[in-house]
C-alpha cells in the first residue's frame, strides 16, 4: 500500500518533521543471526578497476564538443572594494566569449551574489571568464586587473571575540543548574583548547560542466547531492526540476564540502546560457584551497564537575567558532549528550571574520566539540585517579538526554571493551617506562557520538530482464564510499543472485529516482532499505511467475544462488528458466526507505585508542597505532566499512598533527593554500589501524539494520591522540595541531 506519512527526519542533527511517500514493503529487518550470503562479507569495490585504471570519468574529465573553459578571478585581499575592472581589456583577448562581473545581469537569483564588488575574504570570486581555452580564460582574468581599495579586516578569533563580532545570536542549550552543580562538585577540571581550521582538500576540486540546451539544462557536477543540486539549479534559474538533469558519475572526494550545485554549477550554467556552448568550470588547486570551504577553527572552554568517584555532576561547554556555517551549531552537542549528567550547559558563538565561511566538513562541529570535551574528560580521569575508560563507562548515557528519548541501539559500552582489548589498554602504563629509543610513548582514548540513522525519502528501482540479470537504480552518486557496491550486495542478497548478476547505477537524476545527499552519514541507512524493498518486490513477482511456470505455490518457493527452489527440495531451477520466458519484457519493482520509528533517537557511537611516540629532542609526534571500535548497526560491506574508518582516522590524525589553514594576520590571506604547504598525510604517515564493529544490527531503525559511517570515525581520533600525548609526556598542548614547535613548548 502506498501512503503519505508524517515522520521526523534528521540530517547532521537538524530535525525536521515532514510528509513522505512510503510504500509498505512488508519486510522485517534481518535479525542479528540471519544467515546472509553477501551482506556482511568483505566485497571489493564495484568501481575499483575503473578508478585505478583511469577509465572512471570524473566531472573534471568531461569534455563536450564546443566546450568553453571558465576561469575565476579571486580577491587577493581579505576585505576591500573593487573600484575598477578592465572588462574591455579582458573581452579583447582572442577566444574570450563571456565575462561576468558583479555588475552583470545574471539569469539566476541568489541571496548574496556569486561575484563580489566588496570581497569579504581572500579568494572570494570577483569575476569569471569563459573562453575557447583555459589559457585564454586565465589571461583574460589577469587582464581584468582589478583596482581594489583595501578595507579593514579581522582574521583572528581573539580580536573578533573582543570586538564582539557575532554572526547571529549566541546559542545556548542547558538543563539543570550548571553553575550550582559546579560550585558543589567535589572534583572540578577546566580546560581551554584551540582547534585549527581544516580544509577538505578533495583530490578532485569543485567542478562543473554545464550545457544549456534548448529543452534541458544538463550539468555534470562534482557534488555529494545530485538531487539537491538539481533542486538548486531549478529554483535559481526558475526552471521545472524535470528540465534539469544532473550527472555525477564519480566524485573524487567531497568530505562535506560539495553540497548542492554550488558556485561552479550555477556559474557554468549561466555562462552556457549566455554563450550557447557547454562550459567547464573547474577550480584550480589554489582556488579549491581558498574557496572550497573549511572546518572553522574554534576556541573552547570545558568545565567539568564530578563526585570523588568520577560521577559527572556538571558539564559546561563554551565554544567560539571562527565564522562557521550560517545557522548551524553543534560544537557543544556532545557535551549535552555523550555522558549522563543532570546539570549541563552548552554555549556557542559564531564569530564573523573576514575569512571564507565554514561549510560542512565530515562531522562538522561535533568533531571540534569532541576534541575539546574528550580531552577534558581525560583530565577528569587524571584528577580522580580513574582509568579513563572506566570513567567513561561509569557515566554512560543510555538515552538521549537532550531529547529525552531512548536510542534505537547503543553499543558504546561494547566499543569501550573491544577497543581496550584490541589495543592492550590494561597494560598501557608500560609504554610510559623509559624506552630504548629515547622516545616518550603513551596511549589515550576518546569516545564518539554522532547521528547517522538516515530516513526517508529515499527510493530505488530494480528491473530483472530475460537474461536473469537485475539492474538496480539508486538516486545517489558514489562519492568514494562504496555506496553502489553496498547496494549491489543488498540487492543480490534479497534476490538470491550472485553478485555478478546484479548491476547498480547511480549518479544521474534522469531516471527520477530520488536519493538523499551523501551527508550526515545517512546514505547507507537511507538507501539500502530502499534497495532491499525494490529487490524484494522483484523477488515476489518472480516467484509468482515461477508459480505459473512450475505450477507451484509461490509461497513454497525461495531464491538462492541464482536459482529458484522449493522449500521441500523438489524443485531446483535456474532463474533463467523463468526469466527467459519474459522475451523483451522485464520484472520491475520499486522500493523506498520506510519512516523512522516514533519516539527514538538513532545515533552512532564509538571509541578509539591511539598510541603515540614523542621525540623529546625534535618534538615529532608519530602515531604508532589506532584501535577503533564503532557501533554502526549492521555492517553491509566490512571491506568498505573498514576503508571508511581508515580514511576518517587519517583525516582526524591530520587534524591533530599537521593540517591547519594558516592565515597571515598582517594581510588576512591564507599562506598555505596549496597542497605543497597544506599538509595532508601520505601513506607513509599512516599508522597501523585496527577496526572492529559492534555485532548488533539496529533492527528498530530500518529493514537492513544499518546506521551510517561516513562521519563517525573522524570524530574521536584527534582527542585520542591528544590524550595519548598527555599520557606520554604528562603535558597537554593548548592548541592543535601538535606541531613540533608546539610540542617542545608543551614539554619544556
Amino acid at each position, binding site marked *: 500500500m502506498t501512503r503519505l506519512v508524517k515522520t521526523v527526519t534528521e540530517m547532521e542533527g537538524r530535525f525536521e518533521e515532514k510528509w513522505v511517500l512510503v510504500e509498505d514493503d512488508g519486510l522485517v529487518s534481518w535479525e542479528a543471526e540471519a544467515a546472509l550470503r553477501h551482506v556482511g562479507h568483505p566485497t571489493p569495490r564495484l568501481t575499483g578497476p575503473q578508478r585505478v585504471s583511469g577509465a572512471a570519468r570524473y566531472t573534471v574529465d568531461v569534455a563536450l564538443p564546443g566546450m568553453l573553459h571558465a576561469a575565476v578571478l579571486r580577491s587577493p585581499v581579505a576585505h576591500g572594494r573593487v573600484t575598477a575592472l578592465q572588462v574591455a581589456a579582458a573581452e579583447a583577448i582572442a577566444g574570450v566569449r563571456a565575462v561576468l562581473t558583479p555588475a552583470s545581469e545574471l539569469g539566476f537569483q541568489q541571496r548574496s551574489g556569486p561575484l563580489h564588488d566588496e570581497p569579504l575574504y581572500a579568494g572570494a570570486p570577483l569575476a569569471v571568464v569563459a573562453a575557447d581555452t583555459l*589559457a585564454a580564460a*586565465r589571461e583574460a582574468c589577469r587582464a581584468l586587473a582589478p583596482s581594489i581599495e583595501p578595507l579593514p579586516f579581522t582574521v583572528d578569533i581573539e580580536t573578533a571575540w573582543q570586538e564582539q563580532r557575532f554572526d547571529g545570536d549566541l546559542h545556548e542549550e542547558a538543563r539543570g543548574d550548571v553553575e550550582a552543580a559546579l560550585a558543589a562538585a567535589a572534583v572540578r577540571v577546566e580546560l581551554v583548547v584551540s582547534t585549527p581550521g581544516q580544509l577538505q582538500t578533495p583530490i578532485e576540486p569543485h567542478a562543473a560542466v554545464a550545457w544549456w540546451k534548448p529543452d534541458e539544462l544538463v550539468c555534470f557536477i562534482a557534488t555529494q547531492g545530485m538531487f539537491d543540486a538539481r533542486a538548486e539549479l531549478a529554483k535559481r534559474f526558475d526552471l521545472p526540476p524535470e528540465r534539469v538533469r544532473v550527472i555525477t558519475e564519480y566524485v573524487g572526494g567531497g568530505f562535506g564540502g560539495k553540497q548542492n550545485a554550488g558556485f561552479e554549477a550555477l556559474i557554468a550554467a549561466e555562462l552556457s546560457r549566455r554563450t550557447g556552448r557547454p562550459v567547464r568550470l573547474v577550480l*584550480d*588547486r589554489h582556488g579549491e584551497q581558498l574557496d572550497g570551504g573549511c572546518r572553522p577553527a574554534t576556541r573552547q572552554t570545558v568545565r567539568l564537575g564530578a563526585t570523588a568517584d568520577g560521577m559527572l555532576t556538571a558539564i559546561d561547554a563554551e565554544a567560539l567558532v571562527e565564522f562557521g556555517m550560517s545557522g548551524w551549531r553543534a560544537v557543544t552537542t556532545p557535551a549535552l549528550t555523550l555522558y549522563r549528567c543532570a546539570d549541563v550547559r552548552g554555549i556557542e558563538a559564531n564569530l564573523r571574520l573576514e575569512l571564507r565561511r565554514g561549510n560542512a566538513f565530515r562531522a562538522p562541529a561535533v568533531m571540534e566539540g569532541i576534541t575539546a570535551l574528550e580531552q577534558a574528560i581525560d583530565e577528569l580521569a587524571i584528577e580522580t585517579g580513574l582509568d579513563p575508560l572506566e570513567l567513561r563507562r561509569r557515566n554512560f548515557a543510555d538515552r538521549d538526554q537532550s531529547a529525552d528519548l531512548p536510542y534505537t541501539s547503543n553499543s558504546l559500552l561494547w566499543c569501550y571493551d573491544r577497543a581496550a582489548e584490541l589495543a592492550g589498554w590494561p597494560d598501557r602504563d608500560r609504554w610510559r617506562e623509559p624506552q630504548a629509543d629515547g622516545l616518550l610513548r603513551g596511549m589515550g582514548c576518546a569516545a564518539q557520538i554522532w547521528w547517522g540513522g538516515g530516513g526517508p525519502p529515499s527510493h530505488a528501482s530494480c528491473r530483472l530482464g530475460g537474461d536473469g540479470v537485475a539492474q538496480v537504480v539508486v538516486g545517489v552518486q558514489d562519492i568514494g564510499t562504496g555506496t553502489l557496491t553496498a547496494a549491489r550486495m543488498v540487492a543480490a542478497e534479497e534476490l538470491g543472485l550472485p553478485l555478478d548478476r546484479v548491476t547498480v547505477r547511480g549518479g544521474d537524476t534522469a531516471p527520477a529516482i530520488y536519493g538523499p545527499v551523501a551527508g550526515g552519514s545517512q546514505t547507507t541507512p537511507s538507501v539500502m532499505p530502499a534497495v532491499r524493498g525494490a529487490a524484494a518486490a522483484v523477488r515476489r513477482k518472480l516467484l509468482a511467475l515461477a508459480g505459473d511456470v512450475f505450477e507451484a505455490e509461490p509461497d513454497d518457493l525461495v531464491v538462492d544462488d541464482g536459482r529458484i527452489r522449493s522449500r521441500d527440495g523438489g524443485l531446483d531451477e535456474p532463474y533463467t528458466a523463468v526469466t527467459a520466458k519474459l522475451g523483451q519484457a522485464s520484472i520491475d519493482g520499486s522500493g523506498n526507505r520506510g519512516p523512522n520509528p516514533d519516539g527514538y533517537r538513532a545515533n552512532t557511537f564509538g571509541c578509539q585508542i591511539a598510541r603515540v611516540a614523542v621525540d623529546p*629532542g*625534535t*618534538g*615529532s609526534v608519530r602515531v604508532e597505532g589506532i584501535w577503533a571500535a564503532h557501533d554502526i548497526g549492521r555492517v553491509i560491506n566490512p571491506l568498505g566499512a573498514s576503508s571508511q574508518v581508515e580514511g576518517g582516522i587519517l583525516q582526524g590524525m591530520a587534524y591533530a598533527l*599537521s593540517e591547519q589553514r*594558516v592565515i597571515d594576520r598582517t594581510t588576512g590571506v591564507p*599562506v*598555505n593554500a596549496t597542497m605543497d*604547504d597544506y*599538509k*595532508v*598525510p*601520505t*601513506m*607513509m*604517515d599512516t599508522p597501523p589501524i585496527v577496526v572492529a564493529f559492534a555485532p548488533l544490527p539496529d533492527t528498530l531503525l530500518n529493514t537492513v539494520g544499518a546506521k551510517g559511517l561516513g562521519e563517525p570515525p573522524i570524530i574521536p581520533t584527534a582527542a585520542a591522540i591528544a590524550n595519548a600525548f598527555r599520557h606520554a609526556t604528562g603535558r597537554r598542548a593548548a592548541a592543535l595541531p601538535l*606541531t*613540533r*614547535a608546539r610540542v*617542545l613548548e608543551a614539554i619544556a
Partner: protein
Amino acid sequence: MQTPAPFGYERATSVDGAIASLQRLGPEARIIAGGHSLLPMMKLRLANPEHLIDINDLVELSYIREQDGEIRIGALTRHVALLKSELLARHFPVFADAETVIADPVVRNRGTIGGSLCQADAAEDLSAVCTAVKAKVVIRGAAGERVVGMEDFHVGPYQTAVGAGDVLTEVRLPLRPGSGSAHEKVERRAGDWAIAAASAAVWIAAGRITDVGIGLSAVGLTTIHLTRAEDLLRGQAPSEDLFAEAGAIAAADCSPGADGRGPIDYKRHLVGVLTHRALRRAAARAASQEA
C-alpha cells in the same frame, strides 16, 4: 598556474652535444634531467626556459663505481639507485639515510643526483650529504672539464659553479679509511622537504677524529657547511659532550628563516639536536668500520 609556458625541446645524444646545444641556444636553454625540480618550477612559472635539452638518453652518465680511490657517481644516477647501491651503503651509509627520506618512490625513480646538486635548493638533502662527505664534482663546458670541491660549489641561492653552458657529469667521493657518516632529517610529513636536516661524516684513526664534514639543509639561503664545528671536532676523541658542543655551534651558525615549516628558535634547536645525532651515528658507524 599549473601549465608551463611554451618551450622548445631537444634530446641530447651525447654530453658534448648537450654542451654544444647549450652554447648555441644561450642562457635561456636548460638541461632537464629527472625534471622533478625543473618542471614544478616551470608550472609555477618560477622558471621559464625557452629550450629544454633532455639528457635522459645519456645512459653513460648513470653509474656508481669505484675508481682511483674514489667512488664516482654519474650525474644522471637516479635517487633510487643511490638508495639501493651496496657500494655506497658500505662506504657512505649517509646516502641511504638521506634517500629513504627524500620524497617518495615516484620522485626517487626519476630525480637525479646531478639535478639535485644543480638545483641547489637550500632544503635539498644531497647537497648537505655531498658537503659532509667532501665530494668533488666534475663540470664540463665548452672549454673542457674542471673538478670543483663542494666547498666551492655553492655560489649563492640556487646558484652553483655550474655555468650556463656547462653540464655536471660526475660526483666523486674520495675514499679514506675509518669513515662513518649519517643523515638526520625532520620533515612535516613523510617524504617532505626538510624542516632541517644535518649530514655528518667523520674519519677516525687511533681513537681520534682525523677529519669531519657537516652539512645542513633548509636552514639558510644555501646548504650550510659547518666549518667552525668541524674545526672544533678535528683532532678530538669522539664523545657525547663533544658532539653536544658541536650541536650547539651548529644551532648558532645556521641562519634559518621563519616560515610554514617552523619558527626560527625551533629550527635552531632542531639543528642542534640533529647535528648531535648525526655525529653520534656517524662516529658509531666509523667505530664499527674500524673494528
